[in-house]
């Protein structure tokens, strides 16, 4: 029953004249999108405009548009990347942040990844690794991580000589970013390990293995796995890291267990690795992991046990546990069946 005075402009009825305010659901921070095919070229032009506001608005719109891979393709054709590269070193942080975000969204599409490699964006992004703004750095590392999932991208990162930088960043960056760096390193290490080993990555990774965050631990273990696929990496891993990995086998998180098992699997290929793994008492936890059905670590655990079974002492111990492997023979996954069969063969091998 409040009888209030309504001023002329505040009743709900529509007016006849065009309001001075903009319509309510227009985002003033974004540039309006032109129709059809004209959208991206117009935005491209706006990116080059000398006015900061136009640039920012164009970047915001571009950010939204780039979620669609067709727009990504068109943008690459138009050469938007060149403008974006120039904007990467802009002094305004919003511009930088949005540019890196656009690049990161582009890398989630395959077209974008290839386009970025072709346009050599990786080396341009290297300058942003020391950016004061966190979000820019995070986006940069996101770009690197997604790019490194592609072999050509990993090669590009290697060629740009970023590995030593990344390893050094690993020591003192934010936690989130550390995870991203670990991911990038893992993927690059799959291709080549010499640079990382030269930058003393194993020590740094060993530290991370005992980090408090689950994701960090699992990613660090995965990075060590990738180092272990290379022969020179195996030597380094065998020397120091195996006991820590064995302790990680009993970690609470299955991801960590899986990564640690994988790392052990590769480390146990070399004889000294086997001996140290056996000495660190790796067999019981591995048996436990191999026994759990459809666990992430099952396959790796069976393989790691196969490696350890090449030693006479390992064989002796494992001969008592053949039933675990028999159980695995019935697993629906073909790979597990094959691995179990090989393991049984190796365990039952006699020198005569």
């Amino acid at each position, binding site marked *: 029953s409040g009888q209030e005075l309504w001023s002329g402009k505040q009743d709900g009825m529509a007016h006849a*004249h065009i309001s001075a305010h903009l319509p309510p659901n227009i985002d003033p921070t974004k540039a309006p999108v032109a129709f059809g095919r004209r959208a991206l070229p117009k935005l491209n032009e706006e990116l080059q405009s000398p006015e900061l506001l136009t640039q920012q608005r164009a970047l915001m719109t571009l950010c939204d548009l780039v979620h669609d891979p067709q727009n990504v393709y068109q943008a690459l054709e138009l050469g938007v990347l060149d403008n974006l590269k120039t904007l990467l070193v802009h002094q305004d942080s919003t511009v930088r942040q949005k540019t890196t975000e656009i690049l990161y969204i582009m890398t989630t599409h395959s077209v974008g990844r290839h386009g970025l490699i072709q346009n050599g964006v990786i080396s341009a992004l290297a300058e942003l690794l020391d950016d004061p703004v966190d979000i820019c750095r995070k986006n940069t590392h996101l770009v690197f991580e997604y790019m490194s999932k592609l072999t050509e991208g990993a090669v590009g990162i290697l060629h740009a000589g970023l590995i030593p930088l990344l390893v050094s960043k690993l020591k003192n960056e934010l936690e989130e970013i550390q995870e991203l760096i670990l991911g990038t390193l893992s993927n690059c290490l799959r291709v080549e390990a010499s640079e990382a080993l030269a930058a003393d990555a194993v020590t740094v990774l060993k530290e991370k293995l005992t980090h408090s965050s689950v994701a960090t631990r699992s990613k660090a273990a995965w990075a060590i796995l990738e180092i272990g696929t290379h022969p020179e990496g195996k030597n380094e891993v065998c020397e120091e890291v195996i006991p820590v990995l064995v302790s990680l086998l009993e970690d609470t998180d299955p991801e960590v267990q899986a990564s640690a098992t994988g790392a052990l699997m590769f480390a146990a290929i070399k004889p000294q690795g086997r001996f140290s793994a056996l000495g660190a008492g790796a067999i019981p936890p591995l048996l436990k992991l191999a026994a759990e059905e459809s666990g992430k670590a099952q396959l790796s655990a069976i393989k790691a046990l196969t490696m350890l079974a*090449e030693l006479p002492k390992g064989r002796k111990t494992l001969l008592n546990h053949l039933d675990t492997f028999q159980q695995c023979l019935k697993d629906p996954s073909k790979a597990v069946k094959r691995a179990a069969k090989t393991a049984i063969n190796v365990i039952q091998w006699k020198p005569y």
Partner: protein
Amino acid sequence: MRGALAPPRPRVAVETVPRCARLLRVPQSAPAAPAMPRPRDPEVAAVPAVLYSYCSLPRTLPARPKYRPPLDAAEPGKEPVRYSNLMYDPRVVRGNTYALEVVPVSTPPTPFEIQRQKEAWKRALARKRAKEQMRPKAPEPVEGREHVQVQTELYLEEISDRVIEVDVECQTDAFLDRPPSPFFVPAKTGKDVATQLAGELFDFDIEVKPILEVLIGKTVEQALLEVMEEEELAQLWAHQRAYAELRNAELAEVQRLEEQDRRYREEKERRRRQHMQMLKKQKETAEKIAAQAFAKHYLADLIPSVFNNLREGGFFYDPIERDIETEFLPWLMTEVEEELEGKVLARIMLDSLIRTVVENRLEAFSRQPPSDQPEAPAEEPQPPEEPQAAEEPQPTEEPHPPDEPKPRDAEPQMAGETDAADQPVTEKEETDQPVTEQQSSQRMSFQLELE
């Protein structure tokens, strides 16, 4: 020839008939009758001596086949010639032979005939023209136009169900950017009037619904899109991770097998090397044993052979024998040598003495040739001993300068002998040595000679 109605008589028929008639006529009229359509018989040339001659020799003609041979019939391949019965040959002239049908003679037509032919020809032409005129014709071309004969081959069109389609594209021009709308506020018209309502004009809850729906719907839709995107990414990475695990497992297996292989190979290599070394050592030992046995055998009779060789080499000697050999005998030999040398010297001396004597005598005799001559031959036959004995005391003086006239007696005696002993004399003269030794040696040598 004559008419279309008459049965066609091939001209050949004319040939086949033995032309008895001609036979009779031919000898009389030399050239062939012009009635003959084709005078082709060279034999027609009159040979009155010959009884008759055929225009053409009678021959049986083969049957005329009913049907024409096919075009590709093999001409050379002769089929068996079939002869037909003359009676049933269609080519034979039938009918009365008493009234021979004669081919009408084609004489040059008379003008009358020519005219008639021309008229007939004109009539035929007129008839033809009339016939043509009665045929319906196309209408004449309109004025100004011309009818032209045209073949429509070029303009033929194929009739089909499919319609010919051509794709044509058309594109609008690129859009021009819409210029920003000018700020426009229309002029105010009408009067402002205000009203006040007692209650509410609208039910807020109902009115707000569509707006809210749109707002929330759009928001949720946006959120869903984002979540979907992230989920898609997460799925991709999970898929990748699973694949990476499989790949890692396989890679580990490969590396394990490589490692195993390397170990086996190294082990094999080591064992092989060990075995080789063992074999080598065995071989060495065997060789050493063999060498030792051989050496033993070889050196078995070393000592006896060594001693043999030494003995043969004269390392074991009897000292007395040696002494005699090394000292006594050389001394003896030297002494003997000296003796002999002395003797030799004595002889030489003697020879020289004799020579000088003979030379002196020669001189002497040559200076006193008549007085000495009877002496010379008287003394010559004496045995050589006497002069030698006689001269014994004289040679003692000979060593002195031989100019003395004393030995002139001996000279001519010596003359004959000195020729033979010339040379030893010269030698003796040269060896004029101290007297004492020579004297003793000469004595010895003389003694020896005499003996």
